[in-house]
């Protein structure tokens, strides 16, 4: 076991982690960040996507020991029910979540996309989403939600 400290959604976090424990499991089991989902543990579905220093990673494949000193953002740090991020509002309005299991990962990667590129093309959205699987929606509502959010955020400027 070793002690790891990092910034979680803007606040300091400390955890005692197992040697082969993933950041995903530490977030879920110790820090009760349940928005980070355990979809495959193989890096194949994107349900556990978080931002590390602003860049998307799959937290199932990051040894938690390596989060030391890093800034970790989950969907909880992007917006809350009383203060939805435009992406969350757009996902809600466009019925982009059905079962909801992939949704936090989708919004997290979309947040990174719009941070890097406020006006993504359809092709750039598809490339950004390529590591995230959804079995319910057929992706089109998710793609539309991201386009919608980009337009809304632009309008707010």
């Amino acid at each position, binding site marked *: 076991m070793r002690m790891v400290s990092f910034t979680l959604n803007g606040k300091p976090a400390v955890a005692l982690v197992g040697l082969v424990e993933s950041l995903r499991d530490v977030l*879920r089991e110790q820090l009760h960040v349940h928005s980070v989902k355990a979809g495959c543990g193989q890096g194949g*579905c994107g349900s556990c996507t978080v931002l590390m220093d602003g860049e998307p990673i799959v937290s199932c494949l990051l040894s938690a020991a390596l989060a030391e000193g890093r800034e970790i953002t*989950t969907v*909880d740090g992007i*917006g809350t029910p009383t203060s*939805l991020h435009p992406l969350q509002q757009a996902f809600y309005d466009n*019925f982009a979540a059905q*079962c909801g*299991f*992939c949704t936090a990962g989708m919004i997290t990667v979309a947040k990174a996309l719009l941070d890097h590129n406020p006006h993504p093309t359809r092709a750039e959205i598809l490339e950004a989403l390529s590591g995230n699987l959804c079995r319910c929606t057929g992706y089109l509502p998710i793609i539309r939600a991201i386009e919608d959010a980009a337009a809304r955020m632009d309008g707010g400027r």
Partner: protein
Amino acid sequence: MKQLGIVGQSVRRRDGIGHVTGQTQFVDDVTYPNMLWLRMVRSPAARGLIRRIDTSRAEAYPGVATVVTWKDVPNNWYTILCLIGVEPNDEPVLAQEEVMWQGEPIAAVVAETETIAREAAALVRVDIEPLPAVRDVFEALAPGAPIIKKWGTNTFMYEGMPMRRVRFGDVDKAFAEADHIIEGSYQVTPYEHAPLETQACVVKPEPDGRLTIHSNTQALYFTMDNTAIILKVPSHRLHMIGGTVGGGFGGKVDVVTEPVTAIAAMKTGRPVKWRWTRAEEFQASSTSGGWRMEYTDGVKNDGRIIARKVRALHDAGAYHRHSPYGVTKHSANLQGPYYIPNVWVDAYCVYTNRQPASALRGFGVTPASFAAEVQMDRIANTVGLDPWAIRFINAYRNGQTKAIRKKVEDATLIETLQAAAKLVNHPLPEKFLAMHSNDWKEA
């Protein structure tokens, strides 16, 4: 159609804000202090006799609370449709004497953490003496094939018959009257439900002796009843909580997590979680069934299908689960949305030494629709009609009788054909535009 108030409005989802903020609670988000984790040891062999199960080293591994085997299962039969008469029992909850597919559950290791359970699971030793495996449905029905079922055939027995039958009209007479006989063979291989949320449950023993079972089952009462039968406890001792599922597609109608997890919780007196790995979801959860279908259709020169004869073989894998029902559903639907006056079906539910199949979105009907609709184009091709015409000519109408002797009453095939043609700007002849699903009168 009468305009209504709120019905017909695209109101936002009630769970939408929870979903987009990551706050919707799924089963895996349920956690209790002092909770144990379960990991399953599974068969590496497709078929064989179990000679020995040695759990001693796993039990001695630091952090292991218990190992559950068949000896701990009060009623070691998993026959989920037993309540509607699917019999005999054929699947153990945990393998006892033999294994029938690679991945069959044998022993559940229950430990303080998932990591410890995984490490200790590798210490369970199982000796299996291999037996010849049946991999293919044709092979299973061939003379001399290894018989893998105790009742002496490799098929499910429907009221004493090895197949589900449909007999409507006289196909042989109609074939003699047909201008064309059109044959086709079709195959669908098993595919996965692949929901993003894997199978999971958490069982907590309560002070009053009841068990609270958090589950992502698609059917709470069904799971409760089956679990009670396996645990040999009255169902009032079980309390199922669920209703929020991360994708089902039919795969979570199996009752594959709750009984063993409940036994582990009863044995240890502690809450236990079992969350399947993605590899288990792919290799050990039910799949859709494999299907091989052979069609023979008798057709008149004007395109009317006057007879259909089908032999369908469903690859159920190693055990019943929901498959006998899927074959019935298949048989009842393979005439498609058409009127066919003579239908003959023999549909077999065949067992092989494969990961068991079960229900998956479109259960039994998906392969029927696939085969029947490709068959429609073949018919059109043969008689020289276009694909639209062949469907209008054969479309069923309200009031007509299906092969299963049910009256058609909600037909709208013609209307969707007309709307689809309009959608893709495909011009239709006036005679097809004039048709509707209520234009049939009994002679």
